[in-house]
């Protein structure tokens, strides 16, 4: 089943650690995001294969924006 990794708050994408086709485990940091001058890893909500990456470094995102889809 596909699962979405979403931005937990508004912020800026610093780093995208995965690309389409990568295998990830649950809790692997897939994106590094910055909000209020703190860098935080945004982790995979489940293990699986990365189906889609919807963000890139430098991009500003709103709360709940879909960053990565894992299936």
């Amino acid at each position: 089943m596909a699962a979405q990794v979403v931005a937990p708050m508004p912020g800026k994408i610093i780093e995208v650690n995965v690309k389409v086709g990568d295998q990830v485990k649950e809790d692997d940091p897939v994106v590094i995001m910055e909000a209020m001058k703190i860098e935080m890893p945004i982790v995979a909500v489940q293990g699986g294969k990365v189906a889609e990456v919807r963000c890139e470094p430098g991009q500003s995102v709103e709360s709940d924006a879909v960053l990565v889809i894992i299936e």
Partner: protein
Amino acid sequence: MDQLFDVYRNVMHQTGFWNLGWREPVMWVIALTFVYLGVRKNVEPLLLVPIGFGALLVNLPMSGLMEAHHGLFWYFYHYGLQTEIVPSLIFLGLGALTDFGPLIANPKMLLLGAAAQFGVYVALFGALSVGFTPQEACSIGIIGGADGPTTIYTTVKLAPHLLGATALAAYSYMAMVPIIQPPLIRMMTTKDERSRTMKQLRPVSKLERILFPIMVALVVGLLVPAAAPLIGMLTIGNLFRESGVVPRLTDVAQNALMNIVTIFLGLGVGATMDAHQFLRPKVIGVYVIGLFAFTFSTVGGLAFAKFLNLFLKDKINPIIGAAGVSAVPMAARVAHREGQKANPKNYLLMHAMGPNVAGVIGTIVAAGFFIAMVGR
């Protein structure tokens, strides 16, 4: 020959070397330690560098920098700090920089901001019990609010001779939030509690954001009139920001004005650290009780968050209670990091900002209360 000798002696007597005692070099070491912490360790450099250097200069014998009605630093101190102008302008900038959205979205957080003032009162009674005057005790207690400008404002009004010590203690402990708070958080909470995720905050409308500073100014101003200058400046700065119609004023309040007054604040505080005032046992007491204040504020916030959970359907993560000490946004960052350490999917930053900004209001209210109670 005698005349020549007299001239020589007079010149020598006018130099700082002739008038140097043991206290001044001790103060140079203390002052340069703060400069070092700011420059090399990046500890609150915006404040510790001017405070430290101001303290160094004021301890040059015969410089007269703090001589009343003559000295340059006396003017900074008198017109900037004693008149309340500088701390109030700092609050204007803070208001323009602060997003109260997380608090508006979850107003219960105001209670956590109030609970985290616990240490302020513990320290107040602690200081009274060891012989500080009520005015001194209130100035020391307010360190527990972890809010530099409020500490300065309160001390100038109540115990100006302790200004250097309380200001430095407040800024030192604020810089040490990432060291002081995590062990307390782990001591007061279980891993399960720290792992608890919270529902995302609801979006806050522009109308709510505009009404918030107006309501806070009215309620706090009526409840604690002595806090009106600080809360008034905080809320007008916030109204600039949230109204969106005065971007130039918002920008000046956040940047240029804030930077200018920070210089005068730092030098004005440093200037009060005269060796004869500072090198007294009381100053050590300020640091020790100040640390207690800070510790008990953190514990108070955590304990109250746990207590609140007894009545809540949607339980909160008690870590965010620790962010109720002001120290914006360091305390919120610490809460977030501790939450994510316990559970990588736990993103508490915005939730912790609620009590964090509530703590600023809570400290202002406590300061206003103290000034009304024991102000001269």
